[in-house]
């Protein structure tokens, strides 16, 4: 098992970082945050055509590049650092992964190439009013009528649900949990963007009224695939959280080096220096948590993935939130302003903490998985 990064991976990180520095700088982040429908279609296409980011871990037979999860984790870490706005997480970590896990080769052949090419924005619609990410939380129903499957009910808090061209929807049938593909312009589908505390990641509410849908795989058997999808997404989100935390620490350190009080840079005071040191200790520990998950994914070790994913979410979520809050503290008054980017990280941290279930939820998942 290779537990360190290769030179190619270092290079990938560099390329992605410099691309995002250009295309997701603070002004871009703010512009997209202010726009409820906002994502930059031009940048999205360039991500796919120049860097191949949407299809990085998609197998070559489906139009991707067949890289591993460690590689993909690097991209998410950098995306988190840059607070990349838009549907990258929804499309790659949720939708593409769900397609890869569901037992339907034809659907993969039909749907993945568009995602890899940057032509399709996709998401996974799983949560409902309860906000639950588990099997009992899925209440929306699907019925098989003459002429095909129809969905009725609502999904909400769906990441980028109002932007997506393709919605993968978890629904309950007589056979159990099943996964469906719904086109954005399907009849009987109403999509409403939700105004959210964290403006850098969008959510939407979706109402289905007898909406036609395509069944993916075998009816009633989707939950294991969805569970694995959520585990993968948990690890990738953890990598994103590590990147966000690292950026917040960088900002704190930069400021602590230049802001002078009492005739000294504040970073020479231990109250500040030690806070920054503790932030790094937490971040490096969070890195271990996230990387451990990425290695498990590449090793395709089912039991280890289940453990590492829950651990990564339980730990990295809290790290990002704490570090983002500490960054505001180090900045003093300026850190409390709308103009300063510190709050963008803080809000992203809090929304990410809840995106796939809270740290408490993941602690319980972990406890169950390790037999506590």
């Amino acid at each position: 098992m290779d537990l360190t990064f290769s030179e190619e991976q270092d290079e990938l990180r560099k390329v992605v970082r410099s691309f995002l520095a250009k295309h997701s700088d603070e002004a871009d982040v703010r512009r997209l945050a202010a726009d409820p429908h906002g994502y930059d279609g031009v940048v999205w296409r360039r991500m796919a055509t120049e860097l191949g980011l949407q299809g990085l871990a998609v197998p070559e037979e489906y139009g991707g590049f067949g890289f591993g999860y460690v590689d993909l984790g690097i991209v998410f870490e950098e995306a988190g650092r840059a607070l990349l706005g838009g549907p990258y997480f929804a499309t790659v970590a949720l939708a593409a992964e769900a397609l890869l896990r569901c037992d339907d080769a034809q659907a993969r052949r039909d749907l993945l190439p568009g995602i890899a090419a940057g032509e399709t924005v996709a998401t996974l619609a799983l949560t409902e009013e309860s906000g639950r990410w588990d099997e009992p939380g899925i209440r929306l129903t699907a019925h098989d009528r003459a002429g095909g499957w129809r969905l009725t009910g609502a999904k909400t808090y769906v990441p980028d649900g109002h932007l997506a061209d393709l919605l993968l929807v978890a629904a309950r049938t007589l056979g159990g949990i099943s996964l469906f593909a719904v086109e954005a312009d399907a009849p009987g589908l109403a999509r409403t963007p939700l105004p959210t505390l964290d403006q850098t990641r969008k959510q939407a509410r979706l109402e289905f009224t007898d909406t036609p849908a395509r069944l993916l795989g075998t009816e009633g058997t989707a939950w294991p695939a969805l569970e694995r999808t959520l585990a993968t997404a948990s690890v990738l989100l953890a990598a994103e959280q590590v990147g966000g935390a690292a950026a917040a620490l960088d900002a704190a350190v930069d400021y602590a080096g230049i802001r002078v009080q009492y005739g000294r840079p504040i970073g020479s005071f231990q109250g500040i220096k030690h806070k920054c040191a503790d932030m790094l200790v937490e971040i490096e520990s969070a890195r271990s948590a996230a990387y451990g998950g990425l290695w498990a994914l590449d090793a395709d070790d089912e039991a280890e993935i289940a453990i590492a994913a829950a651990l990564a979410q339980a730990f990295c979520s809290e790290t990002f939130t704490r570090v983002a809050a500490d960054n505001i503290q180090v900045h003093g008054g300026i850190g409390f302003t709308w103009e300063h980017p510190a709050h963008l990280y803080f809000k992203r941290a809090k929304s990410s903490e809840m995106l796939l279930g809270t740290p408490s939820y993941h602690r319980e998942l972990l406890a169950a998985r390790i037999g506590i």
Partner: protein
Amino acid sequence: MEVDFGPAVRDFRDELRDWLADHLVGEFADHRGVGGPTDGAAWEVRLAWDRELSAGNWLGVGWPREYGGRGLGLLEEIVFEYEYARANAPYRATVNALDLLGPMLLKVGGETQKKRFLPPILAVEELWGQGFSEPGAGSDLASVRTRADRDGDSWVVNGQKVWTSFGMHADWLYVLTRTDPQSVRHKGLTMLLLPTDQPGVEIRPIRNLAGQDEFAEVFLSDARTGADMVVGEVGQGWRTAMATLGIERGTTLLPQQLTFEREAEAVIDLARDRGALDDPMLRRRIVDAWISVRIMRTTNLRTLAELTAGRTPGAQATTAKLYASTRHQQLGQLATELAGPAGQVVGEDYGLDTRQRSFLLALAETIYGGSSEIQRNIIGEQLLGLPKEPRP
């Protein structure tokens, strides 16, 4: 996650596993996991165990053959530590010499010194103590005052050292001395090797808070050592000392981490026995303890992977000590709480069980090898590049 470095090292690992299975028996097996970097429990048994290891040619796996080592690589050293900890063998009594002095001599020692001192270390014939700290120089090691003056072919040493781990067992000390009386701070310091078996050296054990005599204060009054006992160069003792501290902060974590994992498993078992897993507050702390040891493991694996790939280890290699020491203390607090009133009762003569010892001795982990505050200064200044403390 298992550490597996491929077929080349697998033979070595299997040989070691077999050897441990054959030899870690009887009294040695009864003392599984006993001892620690500052825990001198069952000293005589552990010394005998070190001799057993020596006879099996397992000490100094990575040291050159000419000094009695096996001449193998970093991978084998790592595998040795890993398997050793996995077998839960007694903590090596001679670890001071094996992990600190030995590597320091290999790095900066003269040829004659290596020939003279390394083989007896591997043969467990000479024990060593580290004489850095003084009553007035702990965190601020550069304010060392113990003086060494040249007198013909020898150095005459005067001063006091303190907190010398296992000092009362030491045949030799490596001491940081001031050889230029006019000098200040880290200039004018010299590292000397000093025999303890002489009238000028008085070693008094100090009782620690666990009731053990595991460290000592050392009084040096006209103690003498040869002119050829300087490690590195005269006046360059600071550099030599820092090299040792670098080694100290790096090596002890891997075996420690496996010990912590065992303790975490024991905590979970204890909690289950006591029905504490249903208490949501305790449950959370228990899961967090499990998370902590798992993270320590992955962090160490990251560092090992980088080392074996010939890369300079990243920031995690430095942050690991602070994380592990603080989390280990939390684990100890939790274990003690779960053990309840019965766990508060000690044996005759303040005799502690493993859990009680580990709980109390963990308090030293945030002090020795650079206190947590000093670690934070190092992380802030060296890793993050923050402005230095104003110094007089």
